[in-house]
């Protein structure tokens, strides 16, 4: 294949056609039973079956994915799908891959083939699924930590809960590499959020050449930046800065990265479904753990320990947040041994609703 010339490209291009219609992508058994499914059953942590009113069945094998996928490896998956799934495949909303077939006997074969390709089955039912995450040092300018590396290190450690061991309920892990929080990190059972901790430094001499002052001022979401006419540069109000790094995006002489101080916070107890209790935001559990690549052992063991405490202490069907709310946050800190710091106490706009306004609490 050779690159299209400009002219070829212009001739060929179409616009505003949108994606292909989904109906072209559906396995026939789905097209036939669309909207007429009756129930499903989990078979193993990596497989389930859905049964239609017609009696038709569809078996799903779900396999792990690192989300960053090389085309060559996707092709390997497509080959499996061709072999066992009539040439259809899908991805889930949490970046797992699903192989579907009406033939029960294919289930173990798919599993085996996928595992051979490096993608183990799991993620179904009351356990861990894939860890939603973002770009990190692989692609994003603002990242205060890597994304994929932390996910890999964590998932290696808690892997048994993905493919074998069960938890009280589905448990959603997630990671965001900065406070922009791409993904639904803010409502996860346990999430890792990368944070900067220091106000950016400014190389004032370069600002005048490299930056547009109004753009730089405008980039700050908290209005912490104002022009500094004397220096022909900008200044940052440290009280207002929450270390987001947006200024650095538009003005390279501003530097937010600080290898010694960047790191991650761990938040817990969020969920998005409305089952039992409503959707919940995750709340701060550990305000800071320093970046320690390549395997971030402190973060890994903190996440593991929270999961283990939950696994031991929660009731069946109770999500992490439901468990913590039943026992109370004061018990959460006691049971996990996590230290409670000033950072845990909200000082943001909505602090008021988090302060305890009751004489009833646990020691």
């Amino acid at each position, binding site marked *: 294949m050779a690159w299209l010339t400009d002219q070829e490209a212009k001739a060929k291009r179409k616009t505003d056609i949108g994606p292909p219609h989904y109906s072209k992508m559906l396995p026939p058994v789905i097209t036939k039973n669309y909207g007429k499914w009756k129930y499903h059953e989990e078979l193993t942590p990596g497989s389930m079956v859905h049964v239609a009113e017609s009696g038709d069945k569809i078996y799903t094998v779900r396999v792990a994915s690192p989300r960053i996928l090389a085309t060559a490896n996707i092709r390997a998956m497509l080959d499996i799908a061709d072999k066992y799934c009539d040439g259809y495949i899908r991805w889930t909303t949490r970046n797992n891959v699903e192989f579907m077939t009406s033939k029960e006997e294919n289930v173990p074969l798919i599993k085996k083939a996928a595992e051979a390709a490096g993608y183990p089955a799991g993620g179904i039912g009351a356990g861990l699924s894939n860890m939603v995450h973002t770009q990190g040092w692989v*692609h994003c300018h603002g990242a205060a930590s890597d994304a994929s590396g932390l996910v890999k290190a964590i998932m290696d450690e808690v892997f048994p809960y993905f493919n074998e061991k069960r938890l009280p309920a589905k448990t959603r892990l997630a990671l965001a590499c900065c406070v922009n929080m791409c993904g639904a990190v803010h409502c996860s059972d346990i999430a890792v959020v990368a944070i900067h901790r220091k106000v950016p430094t400014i190389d004032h001499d370069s600002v005048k050449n490299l930056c547009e002052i109004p753009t730089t001022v405008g980039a700050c979401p908290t209005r912490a930046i104002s022009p500094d006419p004397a220096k022909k540069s900008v200044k940052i109000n440290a009280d207002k800065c929450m270390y987001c790094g947006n200024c650095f995006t538009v003005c390279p002489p501003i530097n937010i990265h600080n290898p010694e101080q960047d790191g991650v916070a761990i938040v817990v107890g969020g969920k998005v479904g409305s089952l039992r209790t409503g959707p919940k935001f995750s709340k701060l559990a550990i305000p800071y753990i320093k970046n320690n690549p390549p395997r971030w052992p402190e973060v890994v063991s903190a996440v593991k320990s929270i999961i283990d405490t939950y696994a031991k202490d929660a009731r069946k069907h109770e999500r992490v947040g439901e468990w913590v709310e039943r026992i109370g946050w004061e018990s959460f800190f006691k049971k996990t041994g996590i230290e409670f710091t000033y950072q845990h106490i909200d000082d943001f706009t909505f602090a008021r609703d988090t302060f305890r306004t009751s004489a009833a609490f646990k020691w």
Partner: protein
Amino acid sequence: MKKYETPLLDELEKGPWPSFVKEIKTAATKSEMANDELGQLEKSYRDKRGYWKHGGIVGVLGYGGGVIGRYSSLPEEFPGVAHFHTVRINQPSGMYYKTDSLRTILDLWDEYGSGLTNMHGSTGDMVLLGCRTEALEPLFAEVSSRGWDLGGSGSALRTPACCLGQSRCEWANIDTMDICNELTQTYQDYVHRPAWPYKFKFKIAGCAIDCVASIARADCSVIGTWKGKIAVDQDVVKDYAKAGMNITEEIVNMCPTGCMSYDGKELKIDDTNCSRCMHCISKMTKALRPTGEKGASILIGSKAPIVVGSLLSWVVVPFIKMEPPYTEFKALVEKMWDWWDDNAKPRERIGEVIEMKGMRSFLEAIGVPPQPQQVFEPRKDPFFFWKEEDLNGNK
């Protein structure tokens, strides 16, 4: 074609979870871009910091979005990532693929880009990770001529996404994939040509379980629901009990409204007090089934924390029918956009504007009456406002 020693990243090839390092290395066997990505990443691991500059505006002719510009801050050291833009390809609703269809994209991407992807991005797009500015136009021509298009970025309608809904789930009250596709197609112009104060996202879930996390990350969350009873198959209830389910503990006591009862034989539901939370149904899928009228609740406003803290979406329309071509829903959404466009400062999401201007202003603009379903509880303070038109009635 190994170009760099990567002792730190190599550590991340170990262990049972699939390794992204292996993926990059795989791509690197064919792509210099992927190779330099690996090298720069190793350096990031060593120095504990990223080495990317921001984007600048790159894209394809006539579109304002769909591509995220990205440049290395070390282009001399890692020329392969000097440009390393991402291309967002709008996924088909539900993220099902015919293998051939997907192979087309993979082939093109090997030609024009790094051979690395994200399947998928957090919003839902297929993300093609890393290409040069000059590759964008020809890549787009190739892709679009084969029936694919770009997704959204910038202050635009972002690529809508949905749970797989009726395609494989027994609980979908609405046809999520059709709604998702229909919105994507109807509003192509809004997807491709950013013209709004900020981004706007749709996510569509078939029921309150919300397998696409719509309530947490969509300016407009469409969540399927029903008006009617939960049909109970008492024989199957007995099967569950026999199979060892503790129905009292697991179902009745966990029902948030306390509207269930079980005497060891019969499971009863006081449907008027059920909040349709989906707990019991999801745990006893063979025995319980919603019946009656199907439709959706429309919730508005969720977003990530910057600047005012994260928002979850708020119930605005407790119930609306969702039948193709979704005329009523579309008219509603268009009224929302108009109000938002009129009232937002730049970079203000619709939820933030509702918070600033008050729910009344928004509801009046879209013609939806106040209803107790919109709030958890009424206001606490006595500082409520009166418009002239209220003062004559008892409003």
